[in-house]
């Protein structure tokens, strides 16, 4: 009975993490479309939410990596396995909310991986962690994906502006805005195949630890897919406007041809990586794409903002890991497999989440602040040439 209650708490916490993953990360799929006025903010996030839901059912290769490739499944199968997973989730949620509060696009994927590593090390020691798996499946692909996506987006942007010169400004910008709707849809779908699965992997890890699933014959139950797809979609529709603002407006000034090139590069990198089972961060890939789009047009990139993001990326795994390790230590005070310990760390997480939410509301950014659909292609061209067009929220 005790472990069933802990399993229920753990699944509920995993769903909460998936929700934060939705509003923290998923909206990045549509940030450039919103920034160029290709889509109204609410239309963009609703479309993205629906496609995330669909994408969650396409593949489970990333879920398998999370469930079996980071921490030795035999460790999470022990009596304290559920507390380890729960502590990992609280670490990831707190890290996600902290970076969201600071408007920094960081990786939810790395937050959950960092959480798993931190909690596992605190519980049983470093031998439980597959550092080789983390380097091979997480760190190396993350670094390479940003570089690859940036280079591809830069080439795509350069090519797009060659076409703009042949097409004429108005027709090109209008055409690329339509293209952005398609590319945003593709990135959203790709995001669903990647991010929704991370929580599926976490819940599967818990089900392995309670013996509901065998690690040797890994699969994700249908109800887990539905719950995870629903939670990430709901989070997406809620809209992480602070991160959308940073991604779409603060890294560089994005026009529709650049937005299309950045999204096409991001979508293809995420889809290809999902195919090979690499749990990439959509945030990092899209950030690389947006930066590459700026470089491809030889326009200023705000390297200070990019530097802040890179710092957050570097700190994510250790940061979430430390929080998760702390959470496990608190739970452990009440004994192994203790319901009270689990309830206490969930309660602490709720309080911290409420505090961060309250702080964020002091400088709230909403959908209306980011709506640029009233900006015509001519105004976009004027803005690109240094003209005066009302800027959206960039605080």
């Amino acid at each position, binding site marked *: 009975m005790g472990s069933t209650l802990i399993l229920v708490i753990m699944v509920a916490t995993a769903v909460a993490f998936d929700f934060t993953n939705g509003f923290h990360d998923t909206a990045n799929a549509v940030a450039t479309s919103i920034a160029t006025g290709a889509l109204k903010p609410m239309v963009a996030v609703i479309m993205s939410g629906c496609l995330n839901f669909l994408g969650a059912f396409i593949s*489970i*290769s990333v879920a398998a990596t999370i469930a079996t490739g980071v921490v030795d499944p035999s460790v999470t199968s022990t009596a304290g396995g559920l507390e380890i997973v729960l502590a990992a989730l609280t670490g990831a949620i707190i890290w996600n909310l902290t970076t969201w509060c600071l408007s920094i696009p960081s990786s939810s994927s790395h937050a959950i991986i960092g959480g798993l590593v931190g909690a596992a090390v605190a519980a049983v020691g470093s031998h439980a962690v597959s550092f080789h798996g983390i380097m*091979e499946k997480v760190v190396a692909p993350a670094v390479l994906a940003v570089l690859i996506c940036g280079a591809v987006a830069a080439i795509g942007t350069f090519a797009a502006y060659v076409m703009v010169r042949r097409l004429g400004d108005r027709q090109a910008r209008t055409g690329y805005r339509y293209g952005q709707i398609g590319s945003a849809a593709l990135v959203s779908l790709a995001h669903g195949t990647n991010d929704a699965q991370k929580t599926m992997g976490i819940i599967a890890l818990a089900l392995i630890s309670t013996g509901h699933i065998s690690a040797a014959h890994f699969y994700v139950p249908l109800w887990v897919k539905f719950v995870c797809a629903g939670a990430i979609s709901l989070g997406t529709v809620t809209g992480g406007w602070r991160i959308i603002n940073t991604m779409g407006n603060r890294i560089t000034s994005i026009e529709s041809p650049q937005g299309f090139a950045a999204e096409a590069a991001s979508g293809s990198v995420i889809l290809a990586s999902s*195919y090979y089972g690499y749990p990439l961060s959509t945030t990092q890939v899209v950030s690389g794409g947006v930066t590459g789009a700026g470089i491809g047009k030889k326009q200023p990139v705000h390297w200070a903002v990019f530097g802040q993001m890179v710092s957050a990326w570097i700190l994510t795994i250790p940061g979430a890991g430390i929080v998760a390790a702390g959470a496990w230590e608190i739970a452990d005070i009440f004994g192994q497999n203790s319901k009270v310990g689990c309830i206490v760390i969930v309660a602490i997480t709720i309080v911290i989440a409420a505090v961060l939410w309250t702080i964020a509301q002091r400088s709230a950014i909403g959908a209306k602040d980011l709506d640029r659909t009233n900006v015509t292609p001519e105004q976009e061209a004027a803005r690109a040439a240094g003209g005066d067009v009302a800027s959206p929220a960039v605080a």
Partner: protein
Amino acid sequence: MLLFGDPIIDWSAILKIVIAALIGGSAIVIVYGFLLLGLKYAGVGDPGQTHTERSKMTGYAIATICAIVVIGVIALGIYAIIQKPS
């Protein structure tokens, strides 16, 4: 690159990702640009200009071929994910 004697980067997988990204990311942008160019020749969204029938036919043909390529690449990407063994 090695970590504790084992390779940590599967370069063949990375190379395939790079190729897929170049096709899906850069080439699609170019093909989509030609799609827009085809529509321009066909007179779509450009009512002020006069276009000959030949120009319109050529424009529509280019746009159609490019649209098929764009949709095909997207479909291929999604198909590859669906076919991926778990």
